[in-house]
């Protein structure tokens, strides 16, 4: 089969022995290989983090359970949160950025390919350092143990007094190192999008993913250094006896919260914007329609990027900031739902009147839109200050952010994997297994996280290792825990699907979805140089224009 750019389809299996293969991957500076390694490593961490969550749900399935002791439970929720945010969400999404950006804007590689490899390995080694704490650190009683201060590591819990040993230092250093990786990758994204676009690829013709990744990269550059700075201060506190966050000696615990959440809120948008990008690419293709309101979508993305920098203290309503700040941050948080709502309506507008085809990627995308709306609405509830005073630090918050992060980001990631797997490997993922995967995940997800809203409203605090009987929590916790094996089944089917399809999946061809962006104009998998001849771009859907010279988008710009 010959692609539009004239390249002969190569076989995905390359010759050579085991060590040659290892060398090919570790020494590679190819953005596609790095992207796939990011995603693969992220998925491994996803399994680890998921296992940690499963243990927590096992412990919480019954009241006054004793399977897991309190110290271990603290380590579990800390490592689960840290892993999912820094070692799953960030790398998988940055991995997709890596894989897709050059292909979508018609470039042969990123602007700084070696820096790209450097960032990836920093993420890997940083993650390894964090997990090394399980065996290498001096934990609470001198025995090794993972960090146990929660993923936002509130002061003064992290001070020498309350966090003995050095597990907290492992948390600081592991995250800092992988944070350096994220920052170099962000620089790379920006330089690539600014400097490597193919001829004719104006900014307003870029695929939505490129826009989203550009905004994400900007957010990373603003937010992650602030986390690094805060972690540096914490490290100075802990190792040199400085007084940044120790309230007993002129330090301020609230300052840590401000610094952390100044990073933390942009971070959640770093985690959701790429998923918005996946939806904005996949929905139109499976609705067979142009995306509704491209320009508005771009504006909403940029708007979200800016507003996201000014809402951080909605995580701090219960520390007593005073009515003015509460009102300001409540209002700014409401404001962010405007561009977010615009996106939702644009997606609905895209689907409306289209010829919908519910292949697996589309199933996940539709699930995304629905679940994200629920998560967004509970977010609005939490942004209402009096409501937050009631619900903060309860399971309701846990319900909220799992609706946006699991129902949103993770569903988006699955959609993206099902959609771009054929491009990356040359083989389709199995549709039947894919549908099983979706429905199991969807049902398991709802079982697990919907009841958390109820137990939260009933007053169940988050991060407790057990709870008394007869407070009305039992049934909801039991349902939550029952959802876990259902989700696990979905994930296992997914893994089986990947393994099987890699070997005997249907051969994909260049363009299995009849899509419109440039990555589908080259072979699957693409050659190392992506395009035999650099494509030229005539509209926001360059491949559509090539396929339909009788009705090109170029006429509509």
């Amino acid at each position, binding site marked *: 089969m010959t692609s539009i*750019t004239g*390249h002969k389809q190569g076989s995905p299996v390359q010759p050579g022995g085991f060590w040659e293969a290892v060398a090919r991957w*570790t*020494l*590679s*500076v*190819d953005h596609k290989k790095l992207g796939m390694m990011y995603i693969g490593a992220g998925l491994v961490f996803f399994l680890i983090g998921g296992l940690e969550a499963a243990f927590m749900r096992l412990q919480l399935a019954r009241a006054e359970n004793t399977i897991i002791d309190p110290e271990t439970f603290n380590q579990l929720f800390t490592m689960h949160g840290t892993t999912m945010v820094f070692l799953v969400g960030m790398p998988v999404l940055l991995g997709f950025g890596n894989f897709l950006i050059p292909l979508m804007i018609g*470039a*042969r*590689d990123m602007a700084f*390919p*070696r820096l790209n*490899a*450097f960032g*990836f*390995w*920093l993420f*890997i*080694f*940083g993650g*390894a*350092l964090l997990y*090394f704490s399980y065996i*290498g*650190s001096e934990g609470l009683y001198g025995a090794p143990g993972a960090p146990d201060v929660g993923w936002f590591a509130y002061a003064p819990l992290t001070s020498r007094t309350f966090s003995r040993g*050095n597990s907290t*230092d*492992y948390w600081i*250093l592991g995250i800092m*190192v992988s944070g*350096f*990786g994220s920052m170099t990758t962000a620089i790379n994204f920006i330089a690539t999008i600014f400097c*490597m676009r193919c001829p*004719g690829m104006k900014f307003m013709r870029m695929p939505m993913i490129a826009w989203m990744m550009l905004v994400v990269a900007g957010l990373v550059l603003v937010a992650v250094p602030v986390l690094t700075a805060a972690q540096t201060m914490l*490290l100075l506190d802990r190792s040199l006896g400085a007084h940044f966050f120790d309230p007993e000696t002129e330090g301020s615990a609230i300052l840590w919260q401000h610094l952390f959440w100044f990073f933390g809120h942009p971070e959640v948008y770093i985690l959701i914007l790429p998923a918005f990008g996946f939806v904005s690419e996949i929905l139109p293709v499976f609705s*067979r*329609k*142009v995306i*509704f309101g491209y320009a508005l979508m771009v504006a909403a993305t940029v708007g979200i990027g800016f507003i996201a920098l000014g809402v951080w203290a909605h995580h701090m309503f219960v520390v007593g900031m005073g009515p003015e700040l509460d009102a300001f941050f409540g209002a700014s948080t409401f404001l962010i739902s405007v561009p977010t709502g615009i996106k939702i309506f644009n997606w609905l*507008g895209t689907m*409306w*009147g289209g*010829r919908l085809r519910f292949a697996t990627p589309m199933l996940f995308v539709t699930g995304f839109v629905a679940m994200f709306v629920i998560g967004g609405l509970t977010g609005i509830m939490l942004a209402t200050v009096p409501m937050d005073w009631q619900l903060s630090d309860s399971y309701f918050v846990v319900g909220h952010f799992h609706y946006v992060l699991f129902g949103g980001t993770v569903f988006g990631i699955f959609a993206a994997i099902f959609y771009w797997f054929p491009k990356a490997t040359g083989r389709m993922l199995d549709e039947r297994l894919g549908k099983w995967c979706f429905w199991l995940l969807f049902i398991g997800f709802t079982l697990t996280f919907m009841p958390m809203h109820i137990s939260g409203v009933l007053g169940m605090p988050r991060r407790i290792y057990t709870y008394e009987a007869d407070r009305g929590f039992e049934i909801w916790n039991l349902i939550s825990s029952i959802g876990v094996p259902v989700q696990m089944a979905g994930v296992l089917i997914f893994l089986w699907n990947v393994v099987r399809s890699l070997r005997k999946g249907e051969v994909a061809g260049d363009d299995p979805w009849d899509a419109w962006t440039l990555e589908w104009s080259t072979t699957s998998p693409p050659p*190392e*140089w992506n395009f*035999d*001849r*650099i*494509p*030229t771009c*005539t509209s926001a859907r360059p491949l559509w*224009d*090539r396929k339909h*010279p*009788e*009705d090109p988008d*170029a*006429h*509509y*710009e």
Partner: protein
Amino acid sequence: MIDPRGREPNEAASAADVPYLRAIPRPTPWPIVTAFGCTLLFAGIVTHIFVSVVGGACAIIGLIGWFRDVFPHEAVEEIPVVGCEVPLPPPEFAAQTAGVRETRRVVPEAIHPYRSGVLGGIVGAVAMAIVACAWGLIDERSIWMPINLLAGILVPSVGDASIEQLKSFNGAWFAAAAVSHAVLSVLVGLVFVVALPMMPRRPLLAGGLIAPVLWTGIAWATLRVVNPTLEQYISWPWFLASQFAFGFSCGAIIARFNLVRLQVGQSIAQRLDLDSSGDSNGGAS
């Protein structure tokens, strides 16, 4: 067909600055070595200073190797494709044609004019107010009761008011109620302008009947949780009746105006065409 500009001599000179035109970067061990060194450098803080020393050495070696990869010339591999440096020329397009194609349809394709929404909102507001005040007079023997309850969406203290206060005139509450009633009505009218043409079959039915029923249902289900004190005063049959009054009158007014075709999803040629033929396309559909 090859674009002639790709071959101009001065273009070729500047093409040397364009990265990865004829070659792609060569695989290299130095980034991973540097990353490993940097990580060890930090890991020394929690293990042993020796680890940091090894890490620092690794990082320096890695950086030197890296530098030699890019200086004075980037280490690259040739792309084994003839003519890979010439961009693919753009396709040739057919002339523009008229008619909106299926894949470009936007919904709604046409809407009622915005002024009809404003007018409909005002008329609906009046109709709704009449029904609501009728409820106040007939059931509660006070015309102020519905007005004060409405003020409750802006003024929190209404929730604590006694029944006597609710039944007597209060200037501030009246103003709050009037403003919110007007604003909300006009906004809903504007939503109707866009939403009615999207409803299948009989738009008026949707606007006048279904929307009020849905809205009343939502209000009924949520108000008892969100604001129970307010909820106890509300008579749901009357509430529904006032929604019907709004929906039907607003919808009826808006439906009297012809649809205006939107220009979204039309090619530039079609838009220009529309302009030259004046308002003729803005007519009925």
